């Protein structure tokens, strides 16, 4: 009973063979077995959003799934997103706008913001707030976080428009 389960999954672009215990959550597996400690464990019951990662490109709680459930799944953590430069603009905007203080919630905030902006389009502040509704921050009061996400949405829209103009010209 409860023997370790051999499995293969992809984490931040790299295929990994692992043998987690069935009871290990994906969050614990990433942090303890893979030393990817950017995924934070806060409430460990799907409320605070500090453990969000991308599974097949959509944000999910790493505390609300067991690692064994991720067999064959493509997982990306905040480390993967930042190393490939996918969220460099978000990180810069969070810095500029003081959208973090202690930083505990920030990985989850970035994953949510990335998930929202990856859908394309220009979300309203209301839509940004709704997307962030599952992410707790106890320092900032959220306003600066919404500002930062909104600023990046604008930047990305402007860059896209510029590119479209150049293609047309």
């Amino acid at each position, binding site marked *: 009973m409860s023997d370790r389960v051999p499995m293969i999954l992809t984490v931040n672009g790299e295929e990994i063979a692992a043998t987690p215990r069935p009871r290990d959550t994906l969050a614990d597996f990433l942090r303890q077995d893979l030393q990817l400690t950017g995924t934070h464990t806060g409430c460990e*019951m799907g409320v605070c959003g500090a453990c969000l990662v991308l599974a097949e490109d959509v944000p999910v709680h790493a505390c*609300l799934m067991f690692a064994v459930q991720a067999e064959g799944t493509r997982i990306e953590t905040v480390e993967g997103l930042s190393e490939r430069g996918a969220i460099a603009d978000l990180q810069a905007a969070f810095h500029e706008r003081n959208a973090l203080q202690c930083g505990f919630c920030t990985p989850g905030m970035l994953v949510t913001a990335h998930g929202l902006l990856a859908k394309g389009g220009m979300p309203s502040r209301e839509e940004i707030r709704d997307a962030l509704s599952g992410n707790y921050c106890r320092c900032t009061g959220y306003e600066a976080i919404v500002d930062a996400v909104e600023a990046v949405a604008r930047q990305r829209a402007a860059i896209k428009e510029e590119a479209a103009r150049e293609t047309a010209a």
Partner: protein
Amino acid sequence: MKARSFSYARPKTMAEAFAVYEAAGEACYIAGGQSLVPTLALRLQAPEVLIDIAHISELLGIRLEDGWLRLGALTRHAETLTDPLIAKHAPLLTAAAPHVAHPAIRNKGTLGGSVALADPAAEFPAMMLALGAEIEIANAAGTRRVPADDYFIDLYQTALEPGELLTACWIPALRPGQRWAFDELARRRGDYAMVGCGLLADMAGDKVEAIRIAFLAVGATPLRAHAAEAALAGRTLDAAAILAAQAALDADLDPPADESMPASARRHLARVLLGRLLGTLQATP
């Protein structure tokens, strides 16, 4: 806290899942796990075997069949927000979907899981009542369909017997002349609702021919408001009819008092919500 140790099985077919369940001492099915994983972490449940049903292809898929929309148990909440077949044939479900938890939970949680758990404060179980859905249940011997009206029995208690799987939800496809509305009152977006309501009406102009009204977060199970429905049937949907339905609602609801609010407050919110929703059904308000 962390979950107690368990062993893990990942069947590819329902038959295999039933066999694993049969052989196990105490087993639990997991699909999206968005309610089950915290329950295990808090050790409110401690199965010996966790049976992951997320890879059983028989439980996947959304299709129209003989005037019914069949939603496979593994339909994710996020799909109910965006799927065009659901939007066309069961728009009440689409209307309720943005109120289900938070975006990340909706990416993983499943319709079948929500209806199998039957949380009285959850949106989709109550919508099964409002929609007149039928719940498809399977065991090793075969499959049956249970009307939503007979499915919810008591707190977290349904027509599902131990070891059985909820395989699909069947929803009668929207008919011409039907109107629908959903809303809920919650302290914050994504929080559990203080009260929620969905309704589906057969209308001829402004006359209500028949209506189904279902409430969430007002008792041990999702609840049909039969008295309010009867107060509206056959009437023109005007201010007097709405007041009559609101008055009748008192006979339908007997919410328990809890630490968050007294029963009278919940009754009041239910009346207010019903009035608002009926108002949106009027063709010419």
